[in-house]
């Protein structure tokens, strides 16, 4: 399908007084959002009480201590062929902003990253999400994180088999790289013998899917309002996860286990209120054990990820491997000004 996809993203120093060095306040692409027509669906399933909390912090924080950063992006999608499915549009315009607030004390820190998107075509893609909103305490012997966070597991780039803590934000990007914030309590202990992480995940977030007008969608719309769960606790099911990582010379090793609500739904066919056929997501209870291996050999990185998953139909294994070759160090080339 031919597609023209323009994306423009810009880092914006949101509060020049707090930032060191030069700041570019003459941003040509500053966007006035006006009254955002956020729909109910756009709020997703995020606990709403986080938002007032965030606003409180936003205004109550002492002006001398915090640090703001973030970005604003605009995106245009133009499809040259007629849509396949009823309701889809040829073009869409989207605006997104992701400010970040950070404050550090001596042995702890607070981070808040809200995310806003307005999409001209798909109301489901107009959303407000809290990507991160957490307090981190690191007295020395351990690290304790409480709140909404993003946690990445894995070594390969082609697909992320082992990565399971955060739900995928499929509306935001069809490549599954964008994630929703996950409420959690995370205890991490980093020692000579390795790093041990324990996660309690008290609230489940459903996967986002494009709405009827969205172009990058399945033939039947996924009706997220009718989502079903194997567990009677539904979204309140308490999930947990463990991970152990260790570096042994040129080897990096990680073992992990997750027990709880699958981030990948299975689908049933049903109908919506108006009788149209839709996919209904079904979230199973699963157990997933993961292995990550990485070997550094001169300029090469050799990578392997493997999982064993049970609870979603028949138990199964999957693995993915890859390599990375770095002829030059990762660091950037100078930009002459």
């Amino acid at each position, binding site marked *: 399908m031919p597609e023209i996809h323009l994306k423009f993203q810009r880092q914006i120093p949101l509060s020049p007084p707090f930032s060191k060095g030069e700041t570019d306040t003459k941003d040509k692409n500053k966007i006035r959002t006006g009254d955002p027509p956020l729909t109910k669906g756009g709020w997703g399933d995020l606990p709403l009480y986080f938002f007032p909390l965030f606003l409180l912090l936003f205004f109550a924080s002492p002006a001398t201590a915090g640090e703001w950063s973030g970005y604003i992006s605009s995106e245009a999608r133009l499809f040259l062929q007629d849509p396949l499915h009823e309701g889809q549009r040829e073009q869409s315009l989207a605006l997104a902003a992701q400010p970040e607030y950070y404050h550090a004390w001596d042995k702890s820190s607070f981070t808040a990253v809200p995310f806003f998107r307005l999409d001209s075509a798909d109301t489901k893609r107009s959303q407000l999400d809290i990507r991160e909103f957490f307090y981190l305490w690191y007295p020395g012997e351990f690290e304790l994180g409480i709140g909404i966070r993003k946690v990445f597991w894995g070594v390969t780039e082609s697909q992320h088999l082992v990565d399971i803590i955060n739900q995928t934000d499929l509306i935001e990007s069809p490549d599954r790289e964008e994630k929703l914030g996950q409420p959690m309590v995370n205890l991490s202990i980093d020692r000579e013998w390795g790093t041990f992480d324990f996660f309690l995940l008290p609230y489940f977030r459903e996967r986002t899917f494009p709405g009827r007008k969205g172009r990058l969608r399945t033939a039947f719309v996924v009706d997220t309002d009718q989502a079903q769960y194997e567990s009677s606790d539904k979204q309140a099911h308490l999930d947990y996860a463990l991970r152990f990582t260790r570096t042994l010379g040129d080897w990096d090793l990680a073992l992990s286990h997750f027990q709880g609500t699958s981030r990948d739904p299975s689908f049933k066919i049903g109908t919506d209120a108006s009788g149209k056929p839709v996919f209904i997501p079904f979230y199973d209870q699963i157990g997933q054990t993961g292995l990550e291996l990485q070997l550094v050999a001169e300029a090469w990185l050799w990578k392997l990820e493997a999982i064993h998953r049970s609870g979603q139909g028949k138990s199964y294994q999957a693995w993915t491997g890859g390599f990375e070759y770095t002829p030059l160090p990762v660091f950037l080339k100078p930009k*002459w000004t």
Partner: protein
Amino acid sequence: MTRFALFLVILTLSPLSAFSQSPEEKGLEIAVEMNRRDDAFGDSTSNLEMILRNKHGEESKRVMRNRTLEVVGDGDKTLVIFDNPRDVKGTAFLSFTHKIENDDQWLFLPALKRVKRISSSNKSGSFMGSEFAYEDITSQEVEKYTYRWLKDEAYEGKAAFLIERDPVDPNSGYTRQLVWVDKAEYIPLKIEYFDRKNTPLKTLTFHDYQQYLERYWRADRTEMVNLQTGKSTTLKWQGYQFKTGLSDKDFNKNSLKRAR
């Protein structure tokens, strides 16, 4: 007999006397002494400004913070946090340097919230696009070179040893380096680098040395000039602090993730 005893006393009291040593032994002795005078610093923190200049004189600036932990019996652990330019702000770099083997290196990418292991075999590659190669800025361990004292030669009015050191690692970008070492303080004043074809490649000069804790000498400014391309890089160091109480816990993957 008394004359012979006196001679023995002189001999034992003057281990640096040239006639008892080969140039290699003397070169190694100078390197060991440089290392000895700088050991037991424990840990240090500093702010670093890097100014890159091309041959037309155009400049580009980077700002970063440095934390170093001395590791007894091995290379140091280093954490570098980038503050500027803004598109790399929050990126952090953790390395465990080793005396002989390749270093262990990780990079934290703040936009992805990911720690990534990176390969360290390319020692001769540029550090952040500057004229400093990675091997120039990594901890300088005695075992990384073989040494030879050439002669005593004053450098800018200061009495100095001129030594040659040859990298042990076959992946090094250099055949040899000439180092002018201050005779009084055993600190480097100038280094000339020769590339794999043994032609002069770069010169590094050390300026405005300050002494910390009445022992450790650090240059406020170092200048690396590439003789072949005309590009140069200035490093300006500020706010040095020693023995700040950093430990291994401040140099692991968790601390890399929360460094900012």
